[in-house]
């Protein structure tokens, strides 16, 4: 539980929760950081590896959940900020849909 350098939480507003495409985006972004990054659908856990697509998708986090992140490592703060930003931007899906026509 200890030894994390950054923490954050964000309300998951995406219409269908953390489903396939958002899970892929979140995992891909988490992997760009060296820090160990974990997430949880609540403050008490269960904490899962945010870089594991199988675990993130398997968590089936629903809309309205408050998604918690914690990270350990030199870029931990950036990692948590970036992940929260992604959730706040609704996983950039509006742009993606526009780009896909």
């Amino acid at each position, binding site marked *: 539980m200890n030894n994390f350098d950054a923490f954050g939480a964000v309300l998951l507003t995406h219409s269908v929760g953390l489903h396939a495409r958002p899970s*892929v985006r979140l995992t*891909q972004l988490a992997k760009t950081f060296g820090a160990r990054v974990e997430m949880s659908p609540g403050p008490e856990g269960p904490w899962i590896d945010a870089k594991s697509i199988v675990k993130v998708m398997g968590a089936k986090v629903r809309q309205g959940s408050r998604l918690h992140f914690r990270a350990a490592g030199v870029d931990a703060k950036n990692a948590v900020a970036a992940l929260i930003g992604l959730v706040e931007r609704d996983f950039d899906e509006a742009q993606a849909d526009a780009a896909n026509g």
Partner: protein
Amino acid sequence: MTKINGNVGIVIVSHSIDVARGTADMVRQMVGDGVPLAYCGGNPDGGLGTNVQAIMTAIDQAWSDSGVAILVDLGGAETNSEMAVELQPPERRRRIVVCNAPIVEGAVMAATEASGGAPLEDVKRTAEELSPV
């Protein structure tokens, strides 16, 4: 395709060309174009089937120096994929794996892992992590 040659490639082998193409579409739309990707399926008459030559061509198309992970559906897709691997030059053979995972979900999971630059063993493990143990 060459600029992304660093990431593990994904090959999709189904008895049905529609399943193979649809699975590849899901990978492209969900994961993006950060991984080499190829698919094959069906027989030349438009029916169901798999064949070794088509699989070998798909392996060539998705080839990456980091290796290739193959996702298959049933029976012949697996045995023909294994044969296609055996027919590769020895230095390539050890860098190709057939994943024991459901084809659609496994392909998306494997490609997601591969898109982050993960090595072949991690890509295979991620796809297979889906299967109940």
